[in-house]
């Protein structure tokens, strides 16, 4: 819905994912099936609005995972179930559901937007996905239950930048587990901090992956969500409207796409 007026919805449940990430389950009052990777503008009345990708959509409920990084998100972390929030969306293009295999590469809070894709694939009984996920420390891993469930269905590789005594998996940034990628002909869906995406692309290109097979979900200040407020303009694109998912070869020549 291309309007600045949000609808009111209720938080059904809240829980901690990590020390600085909380998940919120809210009623979908909009009634539009979102595309995986799309986002909503969530609002705390009297505080402000933030663009957040949804993590899952089922049974008329939307899952959002929010990291406490700024003014509005800090107020989100004070909310409890039963509290009211504003919502409008879904916005952006999202990840395209395609016929072939998909390698998903996520960093930190980038997993929820991939989760919406994974959950849709599971619904379609498809297992031709491979997830590589990196977090700073074992304590920063989100969706631990989901990851366990997913491991039984398709290949999941998780790595952490810094391990601890509980961690027996790989230690190192996400590119250190790229040697586990077996599908060179797959599509690569990447989301995470910009520096992580930058190095991930660099590594994939070194491995001989075609530029046109790499897709990135970009992050910019997105106030309106549908391409009229101007904040997220990069080159000839508005990230909220034409993205947030961009095929790499279409944005690689826009010097500002990575900063």
């Amino acid at each position, binding site marked *: 819905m291309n309007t*600045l007026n949000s609808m009111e919805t209720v938080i059904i449940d809240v829980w901690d994912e990590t020390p600085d990430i909380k998940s919120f389950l809210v009623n979908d009052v909009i009634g539009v099936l979102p595309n995986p990777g799309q986002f909503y503008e969530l609002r705390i009345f009297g505080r*402000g609005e933030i663009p957040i990708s949804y993590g899952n959509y089922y049974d008329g409920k939307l899952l959002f995972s929010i990291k406490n990084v700024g003014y509005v998100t800090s107020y989100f972390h004070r909310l409890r179930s039963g509290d009211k929030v504003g919502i409008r969306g879904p916005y952006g293009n999202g990840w395209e559901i395609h016929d072939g295999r998909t390698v998903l590469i996520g960093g930190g809070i980038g997993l929820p937007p991939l989760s919406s894709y994974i959950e849709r694939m599971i619904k379609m009984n498809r297992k031709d996905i491979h997830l590589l996920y990196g977090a700073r420390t074992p304590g920063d891993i989100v969706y631990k239950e989901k990851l366990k469930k997913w491991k039984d269905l398709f290949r999941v590789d998780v790595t952490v930048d810094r391990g601890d005594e509980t961690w027996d998996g790989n230690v190192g940034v996400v590119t250190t587990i790229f040697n586990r990628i077996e599908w060179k002909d797959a599509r690569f869906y990447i989301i995470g901090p910009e520096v992580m995406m930058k190095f991930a692309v660099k590594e994939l290109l070194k491995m001989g992956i075609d530029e046109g097979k790499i897709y990135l979900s970009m992050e910019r200040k997105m*106030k*309106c969500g549908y*391409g009229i*407020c101007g*904040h997220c303009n990069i080159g*000839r694109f508005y990230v909220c409207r034409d993205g947030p998912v961009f095929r790499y070869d279409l944005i690689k020549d826009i010097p500002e796409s990575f900063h």
Partner: protein
Amino acid sequence: MIYFLNEKNLPDYINNLLKKYRVYGTKRIGNDVIFDYLDNGNEFYDGRSILSPKNMIIPSWKNLNEHDNEKETIIFGIRSCDLLGFQIMESVLKLDIEYNMKRSLMHFANFICSEPCIYGFCTTFGGPKLNDSGAQFLRYRDGYIVEIRDNVFQSNLMTNASEEMVKYLEGYNEHFSELMAPLNTEDIEKKMSWNDDLWNELAKKCISCGACNYSCPTCFCFDINEGENERIMEWDSCIMEGFTRMAGGANSRPDLSSRLRQRFMHKLSYHYLTYGIHLCSGCGRCYETCPVKIDIRDVIRRYNP
């Protein structure tokens, strides 16, 4: 259809419009020409306003929690550069439900300048006579030649235009171009360079005040900020550091040169690459209001001397 309206009849003509519509027109306060709601036809002043009436669709400040009653409105006396501004912004804003509602209730009576202004370069972008407006008024002897495309502007105060008047109107842009030579914008969208030292040079002068954005009839960027009982929509400026700053502090344009580059490349390159139209109407207000006199015409000339 093309008509003639004697200037003696202009106040009554506006009074007739006021019987049915709100008229937001140009009037004079001291030496300034501003847009305001007119109470009667005598208040109207045929002149170039300090600011474009773009606040009718992108309010400089508006509480979104308060809903106003939208009424059919005539924008009366808008100059061609500002009208072109509305048409250019529409390419982006038409995605918005509220914009379309507001726009469908607006009619434009465009007054074409009878002589070039000091800073303008509207001939560069197809002005000053445009081919899309409800009504276009062109000064002629003791009145105006009026070309009407929207029936709300029909009036029995007008007489049919003579052949001579029609000819004058049709040849007007050619005549005007002799007085105001158009700049060459050919292929500028491809020629503009990201790494041009120009952006650093401009950054040494610019004081980041944002006047260029606020005075621009095509700058549509706005911000939304929320307080306890208000949700404010207001003009934003890509020259300000906070424009692209995200939660957590990441900023894709932290330095002034990158923000100046964004402003000029959005205007002369990016927007054109998507919509086939430059995000500039040649009004010259950015140069007029700029305290350090950064001239967009110099940017165009740099790539097309």
